């Protein structure tokens, strides 16, 4: 749907949908479905950072997991370097794991407490066939620790001894160990202290630039996302609301939801003279999402027509798309 002439796309997502079954009763009958992700399409070019923004229930984490085939899509297509990832056999999937990696949100949960830092960093390499204790493995661990600015003696430490920021550096070193082409960073700094966040953002930014890494940067923090991303996609209740160049989306949002989301961010540097758009109501249930545009229940610009059809993503400026029928706004 969203074709981009410039540059080859590394990840190409079309009509991606995920519905989780809710089972009930003795026979585990499917009682309802959670519409986690509905008909989402986008591409990520080689070397590009795409930000995926949204609140809880937006489906951003589910999309990240599906791109790595950690959970299977219900329908739609995900192509990685032109190949359909759903069709990967065992051997191709293992190779894919060496090309696409993930950094999780909580560095306290994503490291096995029984493993040393060295073992944690070595794990992906060992799965890819490198021998435990071999000189090249040791060499690689040392390089990776240096790349994430940790002392060499961290190899023998255990996660318990590390601060949140240090752990996240280990998680990043581990993800980079196999020299991946693509990384899904799922809220990589949101559980860290403010002064540590900046260190990790800076590290990710340096590493991404140095090796031309392609990245899906998932976050609810639009300021961090704008800083990290080339383009931003905004999700609401599993649907894509808006996608475009990062600065355009933040400075001149085209979708009413994006407008409200940006306006809700408290900013210490812009204390006065901001008028707030405060959304009414709560995020609707993904089990029975509203008909038509899923945002119409909270949208201050909603018309009767908004309850009718699901709005298509349309290009409003070159490379900037929105799923909203109202062209007279914003």
């Amino acid at each position: 749907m969203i074709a981009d002439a410039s540059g080859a796309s590394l990840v190409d997502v079309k009509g991606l949908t995920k519905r989780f079954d809710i089972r009930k009763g003795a026979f585990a009958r499917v009682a309802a479905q959670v519409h986690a992700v509905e008909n989402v399409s986008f591409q990520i070019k080689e070397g590009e950072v795409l930000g995926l923004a949204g609140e809880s229930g937006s489906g951003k984490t589910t999309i990240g997991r599906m791109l790595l085939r950690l959970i299977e899509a219900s329908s739609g297509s995900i192509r990685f370097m032109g190949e359909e990832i759903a069709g990967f056999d065992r051997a191709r999937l293992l190779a894919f794991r060496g090309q696409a990696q993930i950094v999780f949100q909580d560095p306290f949960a994503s490291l096995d407490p029984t493993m040393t830092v060295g073992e944690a960093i070595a794990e992906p390499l060992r799965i890819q066939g490198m021998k435990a204790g071999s000189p090249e493995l040791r060499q690689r661990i040392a390089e990776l620790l240096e790349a994430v600015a940790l002392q060499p003696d961290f190899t023998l430490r255990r996660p318990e001894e590390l601060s949140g920021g240090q752990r996240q550096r280990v998680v990043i070193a581990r993800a980079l160990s196999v020299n991946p082409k693509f990384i899904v960073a799922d809220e990589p700094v949101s559980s860290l202290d403010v002064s540590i966040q900046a260190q990790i953002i800076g590290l990710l930014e340096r590493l991404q630039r140095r090796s031309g890494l392609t990245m899906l940067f998932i976050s609810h923090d639009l300021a961090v996302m704008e800083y990290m991303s080339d383009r931003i996609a905004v999700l609401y209740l599993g649907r894509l609301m808006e996608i475009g160049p990062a600065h355009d989306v933040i400075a001149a949002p085209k979708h009413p939801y994006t407008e409200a989301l940006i306006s809700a961010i408290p900013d210490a540097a812009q204390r006065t003279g901001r008028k707030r758009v405060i959304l009414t109501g709560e995020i609707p249930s993904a089990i029975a999402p509203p008909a038509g545009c899923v945002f119409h229940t909270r949208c201050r610009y909603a018309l009767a027509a908004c309850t009718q059809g699901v709005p298509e993503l349309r290009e409003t400026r070159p490379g900037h798309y929105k799923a909203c029928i109202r062209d007279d706004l914003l």
Partner: protein
Amino acid sequence: MNADIAVQEKLLEVDGLSATFRSNSVRALRDVSFRIDAGEVVALVGESGSGKSTTGLAIMGLLERGEASLSGSIRLVRKSGERAELVGLAENRMRSVRGNDVAMIFQEPMSSLDPIYSVGDQIAEAIAAHQDLPRARVEDEALRLLTIMAIPDPAKCFVSYPHQLSGGMRQRVMIAMALSCRPRLLVADEPTTALDVTIQAQIIDQLGILQRDAGMAVLFVTHDLGLAADLADRVLVMYAGQIVEAGPADQVFSRPTMPYTAGLMRSRPRIGAGRAAGGQIQPIPGGVPDLARLPTGCTFHPRCAHAVTGRCDVTLPALEPADGGRAVRCLRWREITP
């Protein structure tokens, strides 16, 4: 926000407050002093281990039993006009202070709500405990509180159980319960950290309206500088158990004097000033110090770009008055302020 109040009435005065955890002898608070005037919103900002939550708990008298020893003083002007010393106050008298003069809301409202009672029962219980009202009026009052918290269907919420509500709704219920005693001071410990930004905006907006209407003072404990700037009249910045900068919010955020505050401001990317717009972030090097092994001199000096060997690593700076009604804990603030 309260510039029109000519005479500022002192409500809470914390003086030389120190707290030591008994289990590991860690000094979580060291010589913390500040005051809150009636109707004033004060933000207490800091990272993990800064002592911001400990300060809130100390004011509520929720620290003392066994886990930490307190010294210094916390004086509160009660509704009756009596000036009570909260440090060392007997538990039964502290309970009466908690029920009538100060209330607290937490980050995770689920843990403060009892899952087996309906929301209405719990609010009614809180009201009955604090106000002498006939039974029939208690329910009206509960519904009124739910209504002023902008809960869409108060009657339905009244009969709901905590697990049936969303995180945002639970936090509104918690605030309604906290308000049931008509406190003069509300201690809010990261009340919106677990919520989505659009829901956070709703609750902060609502809290602001209630605060102004009731003339209630709020101590807002948060790690989010943006939120602090949005809400507060005055800001207290804490680092490693000490207040390192204090002052009017617009002053502190527009021209931070303490290098730590300035560093925090620089380490957050600004919205609308991302990479494409030439935005920069500058992290503060290093990590938050281990409270059991604090650096000598100024606790921030190992991470500070302005630190001078022989001074900053030797002398512990005092919190001294600076321009614009501020106070700064830095030996070199005069030299480094542009």
